[in-house]
């Protein structure tokens, strides 16, 4: 058992931090980038590709770096620290992860290679209006059509769905939920993009007999989707940890410099104790987030570990996000200052793939299955 990052992981962190701090160290530059289309910086995306980040978790034969969940965690945390708007978790971990898990050799080679090079942006079109977080599709259906398939229905919100070059789409098939590839220029595809509150992008994606290609051998992909969602939830956990870390440091710095009633705010014990409680929430969540990535690395029950991470990170995100604003006072709710953007992003992460109460419900259903939780034993140690 070892909670230390190795030197290669530390080097990776330094490299990513160096790049992202240069671009987004000043929160105004992030605001500029997220205001313009496509909501992130193409040049930074290319630099991430050059550094190997966009192929990080993929097999070398698919054009990737063959790295593991811990390296993904390192990158996601650095993304979170500066709220970099580049869709690393969305494109690489989630959409890329599904291709890696279910794609044919040809699909993997084509899509993951291009993703790793930064020349192709994939998005996972899965959520459907009116339902909540689930691993299956209900409103979009797939029907065989010649050699391929044809999709009908609406997916929304699809993160980066308007800009994506290729969509991975979950759809109802006989026997469950299948996964399909839809090219951005496919006929019968209508995409309406918009900004999300955290400066990101999402879209309504309409399929009207849209031609699609089955991912890999087809068939029910519910378990693979569940697993890919779990890996994305874990990665988002690290992005949230990075964001909370910055939010707490920003808040502590503000308390030291801002004066009220003739003294710095840090002289008010009621405020400093609340900052201490934020630290407690953050560190406890960090422990579970790190552990969940280690479970993934060890081949353990990644779905359960992701739920545990999601619950702890969600609770911490709300606590830290709210308190960071409150301890700042009025400036905290302005778009001109950084802290509110952190709360906005934490709120988005919290809701995109399942919030804390949702994760808790899943954990509660299984709480009688075990007497105690052994984080180093079954089912987590693989």
């Amino acid at each position, binding site marked *: 058992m070892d909670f230390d990052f190795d030197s290669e992981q530390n080097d990776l962190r330094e490299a990513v931090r160096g790049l992202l701090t240069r671009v987004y160290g000043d929160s105004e530059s992030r605001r500029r980038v997220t205001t313009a289309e496509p909501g992130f910086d193409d040049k930074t995306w290319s630099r991430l590709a050059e550094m190997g980040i966009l192929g990080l978790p993929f097999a070398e034969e698919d054009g990737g770096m063959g790295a593991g969940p811990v390296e993904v965690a390192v990158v996601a945390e650095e993304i979170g620290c500066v709220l970099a708007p580049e869709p690393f978790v969305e494109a690489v971990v989630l959409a890329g992860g599904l291709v890696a898990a279910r794609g044919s050799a040809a699909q993997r080679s084509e899509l993951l290679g291009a993703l790793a090079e930064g020349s192709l942006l994939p998005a996972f079109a899965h959520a459907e*209006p009116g339902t*909540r977080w689930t691993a299956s599709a209900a409103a979009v259906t797939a029907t065989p059509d010649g050699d391929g398939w044809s999709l009908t229905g609406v997916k929304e*919100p699809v993160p980066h769905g308007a800009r994506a070059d290729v969509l991975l789409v979950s759809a109802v098939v006989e026997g469950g939920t299948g996964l399909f590839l839809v090219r951005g220029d496919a006929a019968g595809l209508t995409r309406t993009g*918009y900004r999300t509150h955290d400066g990101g992008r999402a879209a309504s994606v*309409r399929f009207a007999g849209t031609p699609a290609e089955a991912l890999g051998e087809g068939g029910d992909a519910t378990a693979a989707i569940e697993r890919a969602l779990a890996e994305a939830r874990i990665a988002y956990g690290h992005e949230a940890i990075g964001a909370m870390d910055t939010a707490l440091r920003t808040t502590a710095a503000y308390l030291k410099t801002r004066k009220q009633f003739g003294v710095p705010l840090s002289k008010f014990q009621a405020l400093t104790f609340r900052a201490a409680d934020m630290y407690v929430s953050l560190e406890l969540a960090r422990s579970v987030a790190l552990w969940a990535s280690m479970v993934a690395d060890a081949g353990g029950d990644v779905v359960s570990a992701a739920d545990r991470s999601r619950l702890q990170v969600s609770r911490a995100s709300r606590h830290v996000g*709210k308190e960071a604003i409150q301890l700042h006072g009025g400036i905290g709710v302005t778009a001109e200052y950084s802290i*509110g953007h952190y709360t906005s992003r934490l*709120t988005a992460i919290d*809701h995109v793939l399942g919030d804390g109460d949702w994760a808790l*419900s899943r954990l509660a259903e299984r709480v009688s299955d075990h007497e105690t939780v052994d984080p180093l034993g079954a089912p987590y140690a693989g």
Partner: protein
Amino acid sequence: MRLQLSPELEAFREEMRTFFTTQVPQHIRDSVAARRHVSKEHYVETQRVLHAAGLAVPHWPVEWGGRDWTPLQRHIWREEMQLACVPEPLAFNASMIGPVIAAFGDQEQKERFLPGTANLDIWWCQGFSEPDAGSDLASLRTAAVRDGDDWVVNGQKTWTTLGQHADWIFCLVRTDPTAEKKQRGISLLVFPMDSPGVTLRPIELIDGSFEVNEVFFEDVRVPAENLIGEENRGWDYAKFLLGNERVGIARVGSTKRLLAQAKEHAREITADGRPLSEDPRMAARIAEVENELLALELTALRVVANSADGKPHPASSVLKLRGSELQQAATELIVDIAGPLSLASSAGEGSDVPDWARVATPEYLNHRKVSIYGGSNEVQRTIIAGSILGL
């Protein structure tokens, strides 16, 4: 001790309810119900409808449009207004500068300002907060220096809500920098926002809205007759003004409406094959906020029922504190009900995400302000610990 309203008050409540739901234009109330930002025109139109019926400034002196109602009547008036999604009379006019001018202004000022203030012919904004003051309002630095018949104002205000719509500003300025206590030497000046030397910079909030502003004063000349009340007694007027209508700040009616919407939305969302409203934990969460809100409403009723003698009820300090927490809890609840749909905050035409889910997170983020503005919750705790518990 008696639970029921008297028949007279029951009739009064019914009268208010009928008026608000039939006389205030439906499109304006729909807009409030949908939690869209209320436009200047909607504010003005509503307040004029209300004022024409004597319902805009009932707490003012009768000669200026007041109704001589009991605190309980005023409470019912406000609750029914909120429940009916009626935009309330502009606080800066109705609750702030109006009562101050009525109480401390001279006759000429009353005649000059009060009718237009009640009818929202003049849109007022508030010049109190400053960048380096925050909760320590009394440390303000904007200065007014007497020059002949004028005051010359220099300095900066911030958090000036809806200042972009304002015709006039009421402004705390330091007129005696040598005063021993910082609370002394402050005066209350009023002047038009288009006075030479006044500039306004809107501040974008985290939900993308523009509600507050910075206001800069550079050698703004204000005629001496625009001083309200006595020179150097502005702090007293500010306290009078901020203590006004503390009950309304609980915003019970408004939060009730949010909660009713939350229940409705929970029925529209499917989770695990059944309406989210049937999830026992979601139902419990809604029921708990509802009970907290009941407790707040009853506390507000205790305060109004017992404040007829003019002394503030100690429990009134609870209202702002818990009222803001419950507004925030209700907006958070709606975001959680929206779930993944809450991402679609700027969706437009061509989106299948319902409007309520689109506005959920911006409203939630925007509502972080309610525990900060108007006396932060930390200030409220200081008041409770100090004035009530003697700590």
